């Protein structure tokens, strides 16, 4: 509890680090912050070309189907891979200055999250332009889904960032895991493509209920299955708790291992 209070006292550090990350990201480029919006739009364009012209998936408005799941996934996978090196990349700070170490992964995930929310402006616009009319319940659920995803991503970033300090290979292993995880999640195909006998295994993936919830709101224009959302919330909270515990245990030796 005292730890939580201390992290709260360092909230300005989190704000500063997030701002530094976001501002630093496109610093020096001609379009600057505009890239936050241009990037997802260009990605959408590419996916649209590939899946509507070449690999026809037979799903209506496939570009949107993909897009509403892909943007949340990119945030999630950044939290795993980028989050894992967040501690290592700030080693100069950690070796020389005292602050609650949790600040580093929190800042990293928050910056990625803010970036996703900005991308969501594009997602919402595209969704609306494609004729999707979300329900009131759906709109109300959307922030909840985002927060649940944030919590889950944070939990994973806590674990991966702390473990990577002691075991550097994890950085590369996690790159592969993130890729495999993406294909084990119904992002670029519907769940119905999965063979029946693997389905029970397939459904263990904690990200699936989240992706489905996003898609319910922004593609199907319906209120997400609350049972589904509740499950995602439980998974998210449990992940975060494990993350906090693991991180709290491992962070004591950061300064000497780095």
């Amino acid at each position: 509890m005292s730890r939580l209070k201390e992290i709260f006292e360092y909230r300005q550090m989190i704000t500063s680090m997030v701002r530094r990350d976001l501002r630093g990201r496109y610093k020096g480029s001609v379009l600057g912050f505009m890239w936050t919006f241009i990037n997802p739009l260009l990605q959408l364009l590419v996916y649209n070309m590939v899946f509507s012209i070449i690999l026809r998936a037979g799903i209506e408005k496939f570009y949107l189907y993909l897009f509403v799941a892909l943007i949340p996934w990119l945030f999630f996978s950044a939290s795993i891979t980028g989050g894992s090196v967040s501690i290592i990349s700030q080693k100069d700070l950690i070796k020389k200055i005292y602050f609650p170490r949790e600040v580093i992964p929190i800042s990293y995930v928050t910056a990625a999250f803010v970036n996703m929310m900005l991308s969501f402006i594009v997602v919402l616009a595209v969704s609306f332009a494609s004729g999707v009319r979300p329900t009131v319940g759906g709109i109300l659920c959307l922030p909840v889904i985002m927060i649940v995803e944030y919590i889950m991503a944070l939990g994973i970033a806590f674990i991966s960032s702390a473990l990577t300090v002691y075991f550097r290979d994890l950085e590369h292993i996690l790159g592969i895991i993130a890729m495999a995880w993406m294909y084990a999640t119904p992002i670029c195909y519907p769940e119905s493509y999965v063979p029946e006998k693997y389905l029970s295994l397939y459904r263990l993936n904690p990200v699936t209920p989240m992706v489905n919830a996003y898609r319910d709101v922004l593609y199907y224009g319906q209120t997400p299955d609350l049972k589904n959302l509740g499950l995602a919330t439980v998974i998210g909270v449990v992940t975060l708790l494990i993350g906090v515990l693991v991180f709290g245990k491992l962070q004591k030796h950061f300064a000497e291992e780095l």
Partner: protein
Amino acid sequence: MPENQVAIKVTNLAKNFKVYYDKGRSLKDVILFRNRNRHDVRQVLKGVTFDINKGEAVGLIGHNGCGKSTLLKLISGILYPDQGDVKINGRVSSLLELGAGFHPDMSGRENIYINASIFGLSKKEIDARLQDIIDFSELAEFIDNPVRTYSSGMYMRLAFSVAINVDAEVLLIDEILAVGDANFQAKCFSKLQEIKAKGTTIVIVSHSLSQIEQFCTRSIWIHEGLIKADGIPIDVHSQYLEYMNELREKSGDSSLEIPAEYLAYMQEKRYKENLRLSMTSEQQAEIEKNKAFRWGSGEVQITSISVTAGDDKECRLFEVGTDVYFKVKYKVNKPIYDAVFGIGFFRNSGENLYGTNTRIDNYGKFDITEDGEFTIIIRNINLMPDQYTVSFSIEYGQGIPVDYWKDALKIDTFTSIMDVGGFRLNHDWEFKGSKELEGNGGK
């Protein structure tokens, strides 16, 4: 001492470090070469206990690797102890790293916010201190430029200004008083004095014993992970220096790390003691007052300096271009060998204009076994009208000062010629093709 007066309570603190023979931490190494990944456990601190009261300024000393920096990191919370604990009363700010988190592309102002937030300040607290920080850094006109355009001196000034304005109740400092130019250093030092006066508890790790003596009320000597001495700085330091000296003599290894600062410190100390033995109390008071200007080991002492134009009349005012005689008398407390005599001329601003000694001028070394004198004659002194200070030195061996008297006296020069500048250069004119009208040919 009541409990609430204690700012830092360190109890039986121990810390081990793993020293890897071969730091292989990859998957292959872990699986294939389990045994290769051996390490030694080195105990850096072996159970240290002390209290530091509120408002105390404490110096931590010890040779490299004795554990003093580790102790500071444990107090700051960067490292966790393996045994024992540290209790701190109040907010801690550690000046172990300056400019943490600075982003080169962001402005000085933005970086103040980043850097201060890393010290745990909230936005409101930073807002309240912003003007103080900018004023202290003297960078007001550059504060909205990106930090990458700063010189390294400006960068350090900004960083130090943030750190010093955190207003912590406990301030931990690791060898960082060497920032910026001499002016800024002096400013930092007086700011630290001000902070100390406000009742902030300060712990400094430093190699400069004299800095600690100037600033701290207590010194803790850490030796091989334990406290070897704890007390008034001068007492602790003399024990420490004696120990270091013994160590060096015993090992017979002159290369054993003994910073020149320690030697100078010892010599200054011995010099003062010697002088005290042979002086009246008024002279002692005078020396105390001037101690910043005179130091050395004291085997031979300058007793008087007379300045003349070559006759017997004491003189301090000379016309540019005349000869000046400096006659220096000295007395011998203990014979010295291989001695060198020197002189130096300075402007009032401290700028060194000229310096030389008998070694530079190709004289052999001198053995000084009885009282005597030397005279140096400056021919045609060409320093333009101004006041100049003159320093004298007697040293021996590898430049070890025996009596170094900085700014021993002042002389003035004058001239009736209208030329300008710092020095009169010896010169002649030659002409071809032009015709001089009604003059006397430079005569």
